[in-house]
């Protein structure tokens, strides 16, 4: 686990717009979240519910324990982490592909807990592509979707993260959601 001070420094650099710092932070958060998700999956059988917000919070606490973090850094952390959650899901969908068969043994692994939603995988890839396009027209709306859908944050949380009113976040979400659905519903489920 990287040192908390290092993360704080990275976060400050991300806030200044340093893209190298952002990709460093991204890879740290990615491996941390991934390891954590794996660990959660290995726990007792009935504990297998993946709660994105719980995962994000735990990762946040692990990476930044005992550090007093500026709320704007906290906001950036959550924005970055929600993007990572998206990548984790989409990577799985891409690697595993839809319609593949899995043995009983494999199903116990984390990968396959995610894959238990196999029919959704193709739609997840469509969503990811559509979301990337949306981000080209309206970066904030795409981040709102990332945080709410992939990160499990509420509109209120996103509002405090982005420093925009909750009403605006809800409007962003409803328009983005409606358009993304039009992209999804054209595809066979």
């Amino acid at each position, binding site marked *: 686990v990287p040192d908390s001070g290092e993360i704080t420094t990275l976060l400050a650099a991300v806030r200044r717009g340093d893209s190298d710092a952002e990709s460093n932070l991204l890879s740290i958060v990615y491996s941390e979240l991934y390891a954590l998700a794996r660990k959660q999956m290995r726990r007792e059988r009935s504990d297998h519910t993946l709660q994105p917000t719980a995962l994000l919070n735990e990762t946040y606490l692990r990476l930044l324990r005992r550090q007093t973090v500026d709320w704007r850094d906290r906001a950036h952390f959550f924005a970055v982490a929600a993007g990572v959650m998206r990548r984790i899901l989409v990577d799985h969908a891409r690697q595993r592909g839809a319609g593949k068969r899995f043995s009983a043994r494999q199903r116990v692994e984390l990968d396959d807990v995610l894959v238990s939603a196999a029919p959704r995988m193709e739609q997840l890839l469509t969503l990811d592509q559509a979301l990337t396009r949306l981000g080209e027209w309206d970066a904030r709306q795409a981040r709102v979707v990332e945080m709410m859908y992939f990160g499990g944050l509420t509109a209120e949380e996103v509002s405090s993260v982005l420093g925009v009113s909750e009403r605006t976040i809800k409007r962003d979400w409803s328009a983005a959601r*409606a358009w993304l659905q*039009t992209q999804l519903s054209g595809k066979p489920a």
Partner: protein
Amino acid sequence: MTPDRWRKVNEIFHAVLDRSDSPTEEFLRAECGDDPDLYSEIRQMLREHKQTGFLDEAAWPDPDSSFARVFADGEIVSERYRIVGLLGRGGMGEVYESEDLELHEPVALKALIPAIAGDARMIARFKQEIQLSRKISHPGVCRVFDLARHSAGGSGPNAIYFLTMELLRGETLSERLRREGRS
């Protein structure tokens, strides 16, 4: 689509939604003027807006419930209760509908989830729950019958504690709150 065009789509989309009770079709046509693509784009979005879809499901799946459950449907627990189905799940336990094969009556089974099943404090709390509920008899309180153990593949640490209770049908508190709103 360009950022400008997308902004326009957003404006009209929200303008239509904000005019809750006036005729939308006419308004939408007027707003879109002689741009049929704009019209059909927003028309589709409005249709999706009214329907639930992919984005309303959790991105992180709650894995297949048969995989995570304590008991499987059809399983005979303690040589007496046949599991009919899972009714609900909380932080401590899962509640199943089952059939009492001795008395031929439906009962509810509440089992501690395996993650805490071996925790002595949780088992003590579980037992306390029965002792307390035996002292109360009220139509508003679910009756608890007994505590039993089911040994899954042997004895000792693999035993699963469960309660048998009156089977009550209906919604959960959170469903009720969601439906009626908190006051």
